[in-house]
């Protein structure tokens, strides 16, 4: 780090950062404020700047009680669905990718290159591009409105596979040689040597994939119709675009805060792994 000769610039840097961050945090802050007021307070312009007194009432209503007359279903089930889906996707992606990366790097078998390129091709097929036919296929396999249907189509990941492949390629050959001399089979080698050495990558990928899974929107939108299977991010769409009535902004914002709280905490707590995972997976 170069030592700054200009204290003015140093102060200016801090000021710019603080102002910029304030602007960035504005939507989240106001959402939180709105979630702690009654609807009436929010309907009279301008909306209040400071949090109100309805925090417990609003969050309790939204989480447990619900307000069925207003079209607000309790979201505890949806939080659970989001969690299950995110875990399924994150764990699924990691397991599937690490196994196939291991196979592609450490085994010689016919069609090895074909497998590699097929996996690569999936980079060019994000779910948005194949949304209608994937939906039709999921429907014909009876996967709609199931956890499997929510998660399985999103599990094959090229980025995770490539990250693991890269990681394995940098492992010294001597490790494998040693294992073979010891008479260890490939899976023993995998379990005792490769896996422990990949721990950090697994952790960082897990963070990224969990957030990716939690924030999924388009696929859950078409793959679930039952409110029992709805995810919390998806519940936003139903409430915010609810036609018949004035949007219940205080409840909508409470649900929004709940929806972003989990990934937010994950990012904050696992920040270092998260950043590493992002940066590494794009190399």
């Amino acid at each position, binding site marked *: 780090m170069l030592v700054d000769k200009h204290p003015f610039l140093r102060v200016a840097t801090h000021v710019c950062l603080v102002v910029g961050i304030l602007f960035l945090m504005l939507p989240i802050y106001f959402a939180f404020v709105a979630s702690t007021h009654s609807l009436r307070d929010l309907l009279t312009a301008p909306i209040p700047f400071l949090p109100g007194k309805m925090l417990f009432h609003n969050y309790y209503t939204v989480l447990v009680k619900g307000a069925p007359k207003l079209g607000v279903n309790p979201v505890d089930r949806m939080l659970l669905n989001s969690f299950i889906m995110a875990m399924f996707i994150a764990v699924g992606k990691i397991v599937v990718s690490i196994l196939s990366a291991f196979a592609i790097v450490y085994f010689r078998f016919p069609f090895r290159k074909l497998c590699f390129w097929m996996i690569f091709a999936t980079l060019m097929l994000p779910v948005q591009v194949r949304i209608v036919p994937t*939906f039709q296929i999921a*429907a*014909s396999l009876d996967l*709609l409105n199931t956890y499997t249907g929510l998660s399985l189509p999103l599990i094959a990941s090229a980025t995770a596979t490539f990250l693991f492949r890269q990681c394995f390629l940098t492992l010294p050959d001597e490790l494998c040689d040693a294992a073979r001399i010891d008479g260890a089979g490939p899976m023993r080698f995998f379990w005792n040597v490769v896996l422990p050495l990949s721990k950090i990558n697994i952790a960082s990928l897990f963070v990224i994939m969990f957030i990716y899974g939690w924030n999924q929107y388009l696929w859950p939108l*078409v793959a679930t*119709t039952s409110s029992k299977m709805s995810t919390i991010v998806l519940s936003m769409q139903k409430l915010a675009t609810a036609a*018949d009535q*004035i949007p219940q902004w205080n409840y909508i914002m409470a649900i929004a805060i709940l929806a972003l709280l989990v990934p937010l905490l994950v990012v904050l707590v696992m920040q270092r792994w998260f950043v590493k995972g992002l940066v590494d997976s794009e190399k």
Partner: protein
Amino acid sequence: MRILLVIALGLMMTLCGYAGAQPPPIRIVFWHSLAGKPGFAINKITHDFNQSQHKYKVINMYKGDYNTTLTELIAAYRAHKQPAMSQVLEIGTATMMAAKPAIVPVYQVMQQGGYQHFNRRVFLPAIGLYYSNAKGQMMAMPLNASSPVLYYNKTIFKKAGLNPNHPPATWPELAKDGRKIIKAGYHCAYTSTWLSWIQLEEFSAWNNIPFTTQANGFAGVNKVKALYDNSLVLKQITALTKWEKSGIFQYGGRGDNAQTLFTSGHCAMFTQSSGSRGSLLSSVQFAMGMAPMPYWPKIKNTPQNSIIGGASIWVMRGYSPKVYRGVAAFFHYLMRPKVQAFWQKETGYMVVTKAAYKASLQSGYYQRNPGSDVAIKELTNKPPTANSRGIRLGNYLQIRMVNDTALEAAFSHQMTPKQALRYAEKHANHLLARFAEMTGTSS
């Protein structure tokens, strides 16, 4: 020895018990899109039907909104997993009718179920005609029917010096009342929801002009062309854009979005589906009145009659005759005047059969619930003409989106009314031609 006898007797009785016991009821799955009050009502009706007999059991499944349900129905059909019955929104009628191998027409279901007296004339004329084919045979079972009506804020009327029991009957009257309302200090006199449905489709029927060729699509799928780029529709849209400038009219967005302009007291009047009557009554803080849609005077035969909005039940192919007999029994139950009256009272949708309408009139239901008969009176105002039987178009949802886009452009002054209507007609014709191709009926 005696023990053996007792055991034998016991076995015999059990066997007799089994022989006399009834087989489990035949399950019939019914997909629908009714939430809130209509959802409760349909579940109660189904429950009562199941309780009233033991042969069939109808199982309701809420599948999401109309579009979601239709998409899933199609996906299910393609995967050979379709339900026996499904509710389909009224604008999906052409799509369903074109899918002959996928459906069983309701008239066939009722005939095979033994209900020989069932035919189109059981229903109110506009409703029966809407869902019947060229031969007048019923293809679908009407479930929820509504029409657009004019809701108005009686409090504002009083404050503006207007008679709260005398809502405007024609568009010029609406403009006159609107000017008084603006003078009294209000910022908006009139708005409308569902612009394509109300200002183009229902407008055409109510004022007895054709919407498209081929009798609004009833005469066939092929060569249907939009006709709503005409002088009367132009007059209407031009009037609305003119009123926008003086504040009489305010555009409130697509679909139901404009409803909050009325419920918040901002706009004094608005046109919306009669089906919203119940939820409006419970959410407005002022005295509310209902009236028929305004019409243009000095046009021949206006006002004519309104077309129904809403949805109907379609029967899907692929089940045994036993199941269809159960479907017929369910439909028969649905048409009972008592069930119809319950449905009307709980939801605000109309009764669909003549018998139920008569019964409601006789029971004084409409007197006790002012405004609840505006829609049904609109529907039965005059015998339907070729312009007011209904509108049956393919790709109807996309046509509505195109029309909404065009009207939006007109109201946000990106296009003149003439340009907007020309844009709408051009795109609608393209969609209609494509539908003819999609269903293999283009020449």
